[in-house]
């Protein structure tokens, strides 16, 4: 175990060392290729004066409100499309189409409808989340082995009881996988929205990235990118992966 940790640690240390070495070679101007030291210095500075913490808080607030709205709409809608053929052929088809639309494509429409506001940003995140969650939940319910519902029927379960006590729990691993996918889409849409929608009600990580470019501050651009990656990794490793692993094991879907 410790040996494994050492290997992992050395891998990342070597990566940073390589980066530093490349920067020191001076092949490119530090304006385009900042050294890890410079990026580190920016991060320390931004942490100290609170810009990073503020931006992260603003971004996370937007992310969670949009994500939760998207789940609240997408998950029940996915159940409906799985249950009723008519919903599948109407709403389901729309969802399938809209899901293929990259979320950044919602930005122009959101700007025209809502202007440079929080609502515009929320709208983009909700649109990015909803459809993928809907489709994942729908697929999850359809993947429930029919034997579960049949077994339940022989024991006297019917209608809503079967849905609440059998189909939903049986679909749970797929629903969580859908939530994870929805999260990934929400995260991407929010970054797109923050980079394109410049508003004064809150300065998020996407804005920091955007102004880093405007100011030609490459250390800031790379530093904020690292923070964005870190948040994505943390949510995945702490929020979704343990859940997913547990469900897959208990539901007998994995070894």
């Amino acid at each position, binding site marked *: 175990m410790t040996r494994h940790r050492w290997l992992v640690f050395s891998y990342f240390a070597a990566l940073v060392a390589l980066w530093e070495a490349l920067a020191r070679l001076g092949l490119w101007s530090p304006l385009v290729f900042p050294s890890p030291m410079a990026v580190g210095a920016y991060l320390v500075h931004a942490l100290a004066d609170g810009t990073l913490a503020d931006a992260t808080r603003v971004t996370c607030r937007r992310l969670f409100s949009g994500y939760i709205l998207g789940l609240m709409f997408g998950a029940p809608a996915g159940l409906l499309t799985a249950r009723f053929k008519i919903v599948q052929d109407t709403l389901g088809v729309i969802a399938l189409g809209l899901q293929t639309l990259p979320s950044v494509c919602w930005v122009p429409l959101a700007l025209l409808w809502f202007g440079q506001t929080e609502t515009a940003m929320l709208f983009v995140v909700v649109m990015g989340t909803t459809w993928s969650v809907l489709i994942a939940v729908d697929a999850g319910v359809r993947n429930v082995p029919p034997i579960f519902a049949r*077994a339940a029927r022989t024991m*006297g379960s019917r209608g809503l009881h079967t849905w609440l006590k059998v189909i939903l729990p049986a679909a749970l691993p797929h629903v969580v996988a859908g939530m994870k996918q929805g999260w990934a889409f929400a995260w991407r849409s929010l970054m797109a929205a923050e980079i394109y929608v410049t508003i004064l009600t809150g300065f998020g990580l996407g804005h920091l990235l955007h102004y880093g470019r405007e100011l030609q501050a490459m250390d800031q651009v790379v530093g904020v990118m690292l923070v964005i990656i870190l948040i994505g990794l943390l949510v995945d490793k702490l929020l979704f992966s343990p859940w997913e692993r547990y469900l897959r094991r208990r539901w007998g879907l994995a070894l």
Partner: protein
Amino acid sequence: MICDSEEVAAKLTLQGVTKTYRAARGSVDALREVSLQITEGQFVCLVGPSGCGKTTLLNIVAGLDEPTGGNVLVDGCPIAGPGRDRMVMFQEPALFPWLNVLDNVLFGLRLKPNLGRRERREVAEFYLQLVGLQKFARADVHELSGGMKQRVALARALAPNPRVLLMDEPFAALDALTREQLYGDIQRIWKERRKTILFVTHNIREAACLGDRVLLFSAHPGQIREEFLIELPRPRDINSVHLAEHSARITRALKRHLTTETEAAA
């Protein structure tokens, strides 16, 4: 409930049950005019080649599928869909992995009216004890072996106290040793709890070991071809010599039917 029918003497009656599946390439006669009477407390085994309609028949009796023609009566009353009077044990255990062992057994009991919390618990624990798994009440399904899962499925089917048990190759996926144990268990439970059992299997020896009657099925169309009465004392041992004679007799009949079928087809 009393239904007007002359056949109340039988627990389970099938009258000309027919099932035709319509597919793109034509229709399949999964069952044609199957008639059968099973009296209360009988153990009836259904054997026959793969695809002859055994599962179809069981699902129709369970009320999970509708016959194309004919009737299924329980105590002389036509069935209307699945009911707690007929519990099914499927080929796969079909346990709910999101519930632990005890909650799986409680699932059917919770749907049964007029049962208190305490009572349900006691009943579930009683049946877990009956299949020898009382120590695993709190275990998750994925922590059980294949044989243990089938035992839980058996307890789950028995718990609502159905008069009729429908079993579709319940032991097919198990090793010989576990199976032998379960033969003992099922005979004991059948005797103690006076169930009527319809048991589907591929295994002729298994059928001879468990059944009072063994019905030989033929395929295309699915029909009952021959019936054997097994009059051996119980509990029966799968390895006994007397049993071997019976199973040899049934095997010969099965082979005879198979060859006449292939000749007829040629």
